[in-house]
């Protein structure tokens, strides 16, 4: 049970039940889908970018607790950030969920809650799905990204 709690931290459970920015975004000028064929997780990320800055961001779709909470917390973390900063944040997040953690978890703030994922290799894809979709959206890649 204690190990499970490392994965399913309260903040993760809370975001999975009450995801933030969970809606479509009328003013979005970037959009991308993320799809995990293994478990059927499927999200669409909507982004409004102006002057290199993420002015607004939202998401919709369905998936497991990890993928949904990750999408929700990602939208909070990157809103108002410059696009390069969001990319950098993804790098750090990726290191933390894959266990290549240096001092990065400190810089991640709330997102460090996902560090427990590194103990569950098959769940890394769940945690990074929304981030992959965000990156595709920012780079203007309209194809659905797949984690397979």
């Amino acid at each position, binding site marked *: *049970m204690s*190990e*499970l709690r490392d*994965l*399913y931290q309260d903040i993760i*459970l809370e975001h999975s*039940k009450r995801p933030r920015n969970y809606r479509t975004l009328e003013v979005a000028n970037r959009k991308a889908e993320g799809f995990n064929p*293994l*478990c*059927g*997780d*499927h999200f669409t990320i909507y982004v409004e970018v102006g002057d290199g800055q993420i002015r607004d961001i939202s998401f919709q779709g*369905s*998936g*497991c*607790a*990890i993928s*949904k909470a990750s999408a929700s917390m990602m939208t909070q973390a990157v809103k108002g950030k410059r696009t390069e900063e969001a990319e950098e944040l993804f790098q750090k997040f990726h290191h933390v969920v894959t266990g290549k953690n240096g001092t990065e978890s400190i810089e991640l703030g709330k997102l460090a809650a996902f560090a427990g994922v590194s103990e*569950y290799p098959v*769940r890394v894809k*769940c945690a990074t799905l929304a981030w992959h979709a965000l990156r595709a959206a920012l780079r203007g890649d309209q194809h659905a990204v797949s984690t397979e």
Partner: protein
Amino acid sequence: MTTAANTAFRPQTATRTDFDVYKVRADFPILARKIHGKPLVYLDNAATTQKPQPVIDAMVRYYTAENSNIHRGVHTLSELATESYEQSRATVQRFLNAAEAREIVFVRGTTEGINLVAQTWGRANIGRGDEILISAMEHHSNIVPWQILCEQQGANLRVAPVNDAGELLLGEFEKLLGAKTKLVAMAHVSNALGTVNPVRKIVEAAHRFDARVLLDGAQAIPHLAVDVRAIDCDFYVFSGHKVYAPTGIGILYGKAELLEAMPPYQGGGDMISSVTFEKTLYNRLPHKFEAGTPHVSGTIGLGAALEYVKSMGIESIARHEKQILAYGTKRLREIPGLRLIGTARQKEGILSFVLEGVHPHDVGTILDQEGIAIRTGHHCAQPLMERFGVPATARASLALYNTMEEMDALANGLQKVREVFA
């Protein structure tokens, strides 16, 4: 001498009348291992079954004492290997009650068996505007090969619907049959729901329209007595690994006159009787469909596995599994917010479900921490998931070694899942 050496591969075949699941469990070494410090509760048998010691021993013995290539040598080892290989074919023939051993073709598994029929019988017999009829509960391996064939030949795929319990709507199925129907391809037992299809009726109805019938027996073979002559199907396919045999070996059964008339699948060694650069004569059945060096140890493992099942008695196995399924169903129904997907009256070995407010993937991770192995996802049946309006399910699937206690462990594990997500 050869026979003496070969009988050593076979377990005792005396049928046990009293089925003792704890004795049976002792035959499966992997069941003794722990996962995350807890005893393994293996409930992913529809994906693949564990292997009993007699199967492992048969394969080790083959590599220790008989390994050589078949059908090619005059030396002793080659003769021994060939005889073991052909004895396994005879074991499969008896297990399915096929009329002749040459109706049994060794393939890699269900998937390869279906593709073989699609690309040989199918390309020779399906034309523009013809129809292939499947059901809404098929595994992708009994959908995609027919889609490919339809594309190649300009034929059409039709799909018979299922009801909310996951049962084939036989009336709708019969309405879809017609003069254009050339083939009916259907699961004997559904891997995602456990539904047992009324194969006798399906075959009878199809034959009235002169359509051939292929049955995907992947999930039927470990649970039901299968008699291909009583069913009167034209093709029957299954995978060894789902019936306690190794991976990489499976069976295509076909009626001899159909197999005779079919062009070969792959070209190469063993499938020919003579080759010149002008003309090649194909070998007799079943070798025509067995190009190249086959999975000899796999066939020996499969023979040993079917003998093992026979020694337990498939009826005894079925009776035991029915009890476990009934008890498991009862325990799962007690869990608030749990919805069973697949509640057919005729059902085998599968408990597919969704838990309100919890994604199946999270169910799977939490149960794994309890040592319980289940499968989560779409079970290679995406159209069926769509039919039931779920992206995925959690699936516990049974084998002869599962116990009532394991159903309790599953139910307790699911309570833990609910606590985490409360």
